[in-house]
């Protein structure tokens, strides 16, 4: 289980991005973080994976304080993180990245299984270089696959996995997420704006303006969320009236 306690983070300029964020991500459950663009969701994911260091507060993994650990140590301790924006490499191919993630050579069958979860056919993609030649959706699905290939993961963070992914691949992915939490008892943290992902969640947190403004079970939060969305759909329009 991942526990976030009173986490705050500011930019070098002093601008405060996350303010006193506390959150628990239990094992075997899917927690979704949602909220308006620029609210601080990706920033929180980066703090969890160690890409940024908080000013104050702490991050606990199974009770151990990992706040001071670097990216590599966190990854080796079971934190997986699929980026919102996939990274491209000149010269590394799909097999390379999946094998680095799995920390061992993979058989074609195993690669096929991981790629299948994101709706990609292994024959076509196994040797593809992860460079600018991949389409946006392809790169995104491979990014997700690199995290699904991480067998020792305890906590898996996916940043907007739905972005750019077609409906068919998305259905496979939903299944993969459900299997991860139910049969493999992983802690899943998914940042998403997507109703189907919200629909399979156990808990929902709303982060806006760097703060957790709502947290609860899906049933407690989901209904109100859609209502809020309607009310706040067009703040500019409201002002204009």
């Amino acid at each position, binding site marked *: 289980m991942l526990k976030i306690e009173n986490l705050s983070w500011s930019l070098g300029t002093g601008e405060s991005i996350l303010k006193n964020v506390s959150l628990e991500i239990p094992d075997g459950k899917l927690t979704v973080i949602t909220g308006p663009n620029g609210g601080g969701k990706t920033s929180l994911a980066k703090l969890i994976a160690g890409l940024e260091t908080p000013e104050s507060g702490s991050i606990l993994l199974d009770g151990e304080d990992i706040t001071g650990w670097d990216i590599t140590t966190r990854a080796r301790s079971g934190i997986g993180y699929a980026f919102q924006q996939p990274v491209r490499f*000149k010269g590394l191919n799909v097999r390379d990245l999946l094998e680095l993630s799995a920390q061992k050579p993979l058989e074609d069958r195993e690669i096929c299984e991981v790629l299948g979860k994101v709706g990609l056919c292994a024959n076509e993609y196994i040797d593809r270089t992860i460079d600018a030649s991949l389409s946006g959706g392809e790169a995104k699905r491979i990014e997700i696959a690199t995290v699904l290939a991480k067998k020792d993961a305890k906590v898996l963070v996916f940043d907007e996995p739905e972005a750019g992914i077609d409906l068919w691949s998305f259905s496979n992915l939903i299944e993969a997420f459900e299997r991860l939490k139910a049969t493999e008892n992983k802690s899943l943290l998914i940042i998403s704006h997507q109703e189907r992902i919200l629909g399979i969640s156990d808990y929902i947190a709303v982060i806006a303006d760097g703060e957790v403004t709502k947290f609860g079970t899906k049933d407690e939060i989901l209904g109100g969320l859609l209502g809020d969305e309607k009310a706040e759909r067009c703040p500019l329009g409201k002002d204009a009236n």
Partner: protein
Amino acid sequence: MLDKTTEELLGIVSDWTGKFNGAYNIRSNGQCAGRQSSENILIENKEGAPGLVIRIKPGTKGETVYIPACVTQGGIDDLVYNDFYVGEGADVIIVAGCGVHTSDGHDVRHNGIHRFILDKGAKVLYKEKHIGTGAGSGAKRIDPVTEIEQGEDSYLEMDTIQIGGVDSTYRKTSGKLGKGAKLVIKERIMTDKDQRAQTDFAVELNGEDSGADIVSRSVAKGNSYQEYHSKISGNARCTGHSECDAILADNGKVNAAPELYAGDLDASLIHEAAIGKIAGEQIIKLRTLGLTEEEAERKIIDGFLRG
């Protein structure tokens, strides 16, 4: 008999496993250390100069010819001229690796001048791997010259890599392409410490619908310095593309000077160059998969040079 160092170098640069299948010539310390022709590929001494004339009969398919060269004794400056005549419609692989070794404080150098003359429709994959090994103050140099003449509809792919350990290299590659001929060059150069590398390409696209694609990838580490020059001249309706892509580490420096000349309205020529250090986000991504920063850098560089 080949000494142990030569055998090791041959293994690295030309996949030598104690023997070659097919035609070959092994050059060791300026001497011929073994030769075999095949029914379709004839290897003979060149007249009036050190080196070989290699004749590949028209229509030869699926054969490989190996002509590796090694210099393993300090003080040797080896110069060799090898001419390849590739007959009409032949489709072959030519493997020409070079390894230089010195550990006695004396310099070593190999200077291979290779000419390729491809007849109509001939197809060649030319593989060239270079490495320098051995400690001591002796400089290890490899200065290859490659001259290519391509007849109608011929195809040559040159796949060349300098793995490391070469203190100084000056590579000159030139090509003249006839109608419909295609030239593809993939060059990869790794330099470290105080090493220097210069590579010059000069390609003339003379025939209608000829095409050249030159991609050079380099990694300059330590205090090393690399220079890249390319000139593609489009003298007919043709397509030319050159790309110089360099990764810098430590105090490495790279100078890329591409040149394009269009002498025909229908010449379509493109150059791309990118020089810089490894993108930080690439290292971060690999670290989130559990690699250390050093491991991540090594993977990224290995992949870059392999690709």
